[in-house]
């Protein structure tokens, strides 16, 4: 499954970058996250409930950030297993400076989805995944605003 999208923040690029690298901020922003722990440098373990309406699956995920080029580029490797199936893949994130306080993030992901959710949920998988990523950016935007307000 290949997905891509973009999202614009009314914030300087460095602030967007810092927020995206901040485990505490991510913990608050990842949709359906239950636990989120740093397990090593740029390595995290998370438990989350992902899905839509009453069709939510619990997943344990290992996340690793790599290929970091502050403040404009990074990649995430994800390996998640759960009751309805598994997700393995890689996401690429590029932060583009549109102005002193305007930043666009362009993202793309290539993931393998297997198990029940891939078979039965196939029709809506891509759409729901995209929507979930959209919720993440929205929450990140909220975090950024909070940081801006505090400063």
């Amino acid at each position, binding site marked *: 499954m290949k997905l891509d999208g973009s999202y614009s923040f009314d914030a300087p690029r460095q602030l967007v970058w810092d927020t995206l690298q901040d485990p505490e901020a991510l913990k608050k922003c990842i949709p359906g996250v239950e636990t989120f722990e740093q397990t090593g440098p740029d390595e995290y373990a998370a438990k989350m409930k992902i899905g*839509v*309406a*009453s*069709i939510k*699956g619990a997943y344990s995920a290992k996340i690793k950030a790599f290929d970091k080029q502050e403040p404009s580029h990074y990649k995430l490797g994800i390996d998640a297993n759960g*009751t*309805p199936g598994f997700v393995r893949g890689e996401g690429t994130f590029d932060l583009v400076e549109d102005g002193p306080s305007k930043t666009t993030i362009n993202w793309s992901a290539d993931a393998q989805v297997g198990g*029940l*959710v891939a078979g*039965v*949920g*196939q*029709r*809506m*998988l*891509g*759409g*729901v995944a*995209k*929507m979930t990523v959209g919720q993440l950016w929205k929450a990140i935007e909220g975090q950024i605003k909070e940081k801006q307000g505090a400063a």
Partner: protein
Amino acid sequence: MKPAQFEYLNPSSIDEAVSLLNQYADDDAKVLAGGQSLVPLMNFRLARPKWLIDINGIEALDYIREEGDWLAVGAITRERAMEKSQLVADKCPLLKEVTRWIGHTTIRNRGTVGGCIAHNDPTAEYPLAATLLGAEVKAQGPNGVRSIPIQDFLVTYLTTALEPNEILTEVRFPVMAQNVGWAFQEFARRHGDFAIVEVGAMLTMDNGTVKDARIAIGGAGPVAFRATDAEEVLKGQQITDELLEEASEKAGGMTEPDSDVHASAEYRTHLAKVLTRRALKEAHSRAH
């Protein structure tokens, strides 16, 4: 396949159902109507509600009534009843036609109007018909009954504006004017499969020009939506092949489809255009 364990509750009145739902809303409660989507999802264990509140025993939710300019349909009215109802055929012929496209007869024997709309599958026929007609949804919760316009009700994939402690009790469809031309076009790999794309159209003509146009598209985005850009192109114009082409292009431009194993995003957009043109042509031929 068997579902995960759940507790079964079968209230006999709307008030009792709402009170049970309110009690268990924060503890994974789910309302069971016809069960034609929910039960397979439970059997696959993709849905694991803890509490299942079965509203099939609430006879007060089973009706098709004409109320002024509206056709009021109770939540657990079977799809098969819609198909066979003379009142539906007379007042909202489009609904009779779309019903034929829902799954198969055995599914329609159990499947309900309220269940279909509350489930809000992006390719389901009733959310599309409700969007096209401009329906309203009645929901009852612990604080009483509220009415929600369909465009506000359908939020995104399988998600509606219903609160966790609200039950959909009625869907109200506007009665169709006698002179309106209408059509419904759906493409699926086999009859009874989930639609890949579906389009409904309604045209009101006045002395050879379009007085009002409504177009709704399903299967080409998270929820059924009105192709308002295409509607605007048609208003006040005479129907020609060029105009229909322009309108279908506009309709295609409003789609936000995803690719999956059944069809690519490009193909879905293409289908939306072709089906819009066909639906408008057919609607035009029926308008008088």
